[in-house]
């Protein structure tokens, strides 16, 4: 057993595989999660994220591979022998027990002294702002409150790792936003490693220190939220984390970062992103990184293509344009509403962007 912060990962998965009768849910997954991190497993349904979480929690037995918690192999252990706790998607609050009894459930099973149980339950209910609700039953509470009971019931055990399976999925949008901030606050307060499974990329980016994007049973991209947003590296990750415009290009000069599109239009990108020696690449750029101008007021951006606005929709904080270009087809552009000129359909425009906003995908 190692203490937190000693450099041993809180969770380590080694070549973890889970096969069901007719498909492979998780394929030889290797993953190390640092202690004290807020870690998000992000992906569409069926990508294997929940199965991975369930294997860490002990609810699913891996077909092969190893699960280590703080360096200790727990692969074959039952859930009740693992120092992890789970916040279930459905909350799974015991309907026949009061809030207090729900939260105390884990402590009582661990034969903790009754006085200590009451103290810790009170403490954790205060942490989730449910002081005074102990005698009520789960169904008397609102969805958001139930969610916090589920959180308290897991946290009160001081787990080494807390697993959260789509914990905010059942809440409405406004409450979800509030709980995202709340969860982040609690995680920072208790300092426990959180592993959070979600299909909502905004939720993952709001809360997590590290995001792993899963696809087809493997991790396709892992890193700090802004890092994987700005440089997603694969078409899938680029598409899953927000919108992007993709174009095929030929490498002319790797040292200068010079590429050309099909018709010879030059495109400049950061040379550092071109190190893999490929000669043809797929270049992506996010809609909000694009600039628009009328043809008579030229843009300063090194990359420019002319086009025609086909659609403009005003969304309040920004305007979303679709621009048809000869070189790269239809382009999505998001422009902040700063009071600048707005374009309409059929306007002739120039689309421009900076080299540092380009990423390459495979």
């Amino acid at each position: 057993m190692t203490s937190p912060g000693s450099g041993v990962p809180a969770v380590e998965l080694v070549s973890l595989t889970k096969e069901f009768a007719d498909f492979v849910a998780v394929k030889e997954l290797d993953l190390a999660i640092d202690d004290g991190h807020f870690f998000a497993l992000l992906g569409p349904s069926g990508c294997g994220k929940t199965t991975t979480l369930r294997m860490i929690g002990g609810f699913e037995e891996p077909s092969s591979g190893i699960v280590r918690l703080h360096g200790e192999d727990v692969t074959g252990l039952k859930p009740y022998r693992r120092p992890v706790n789970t916040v279930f998607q459905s909350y799974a609050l015991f309907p026949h027990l009061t809030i207090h009894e729900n939260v105390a459930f884990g402590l009582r099973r661990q034969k903790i002294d009754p006085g200590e149980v009451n103290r810790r339950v009170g403490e954790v209910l205060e942490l989730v702002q449910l002081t005074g609700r102990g005698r009520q039953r789960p169904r008397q509470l609102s969805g958001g409150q139930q969610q916090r009971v589920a959180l308290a019931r897991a946290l009160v055990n001081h787990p080494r790792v807390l697993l959260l399976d789509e914990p905010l999925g059942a809440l409405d949008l406004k409450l979800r936003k509030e709980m995202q901030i709340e969860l982040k606050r609690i995680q920072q307060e208790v300092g426990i490693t959180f592993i959070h499974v979600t299909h909502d990329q905004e939720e993952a980016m709001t809360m997590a220190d590290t995001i792993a994007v899963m696809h087809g049973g493997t991790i396709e991209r892992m890193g700090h939220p802004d890092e994987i947003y700005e440089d997603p590296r694969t078409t899938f990750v680029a598409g899953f984390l927000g919108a992007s415009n993709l174009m095929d290009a030929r490498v002319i000069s790797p040292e200068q970062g010079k590429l050309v599109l099909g018709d010879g239009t030059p495109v400049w990108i950061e040379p550092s992103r071109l190190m893999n020696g490929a000669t043809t690449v797929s270049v992506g750029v996010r809609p909000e990184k694009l600039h628009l101008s009328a043809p008579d007021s030229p843009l300063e951006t090194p990359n420019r293509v002319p086009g025609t606005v086909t659609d403009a929709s005003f969304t309040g904080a920004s305007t979303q344009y679709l621009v048809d270009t000869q070189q790269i087809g239809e382009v999505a552009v998001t422009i902040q509403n700063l009071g600048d000129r707005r374009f309409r359909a059929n306007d002739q425009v120039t689309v421009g962007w900076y080299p540092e906003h380009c990423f390459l995908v495979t």
Partner: protein
Amino acid sequence: MRGSRFRWLLPTYLGLGLAYLFMPVLLVIMFSFNDLRGRFNVRWQGFTFDHWLDPFRVPAIPRALGPSLTIAFLSALVSTVLGTLIALALVRYRFRGKAATNVSLFMPMATPEVVMGSSLLALFVAVQAATGFVTILIAHILFNISYAVATVRARIAGYERDLEEAAMDLYADEWQTFRRVTLPMIMPGVFAAFLLGFALSFDDFVISNFTAGSVQTFPLYVWGAARRGIPPQVNVWGTVVFLVTVTVMLLYLRWQRRSALKRA
């Protein structure tokens, strides 16, 4: 549904249907008050409380109620335990042979009682087992099992597996999970299975007729008495049985409703 001109049709039909269903009930109760002269209690001859004031006058009735109640209690108990275990396996686990298990459980429900009773008797004759209390009990447990499975299974299927996983996650081992989460959750179903088993066993005539030997249960006594003329005390006891089961049923429904309100 129907045009508004015919809206009265279904409610009226429902009323008539209930009247049809209740007619024999009312007669059974009414004839417990019949001031009977002669042996056959089939014609109304005037009102009296006599039979209610002397329910033990025919000693064979209390003698038959004893084994009936004992067998009903024991068979309901055993079949509820066996049925609950099967229901847990069927709802909570995937295993080979599930379809065969389902069919096997359905067969006793779909078998005519006369076939079930006669086959049991054929077996008891073949192994030279004397029929009596034990063989009735065996038979009653048998036909109750399928109903117990069906009743408990409906209840288990009604809540999510998550609750058990949550308990395991919170350091409850398999036994503690069963004891503290599964059992409290399925208790209404288990209780209902027991009540149903008790009622089915207490009221069984056909299968008991084949397996009873010389033991007399309440239905067997009634059967025998039917040829000689039923004493009105039988109606008294029939009414008592009816009132008790109705009360238990209503209490059960109220309890379940309350706990449903508490839990939901």
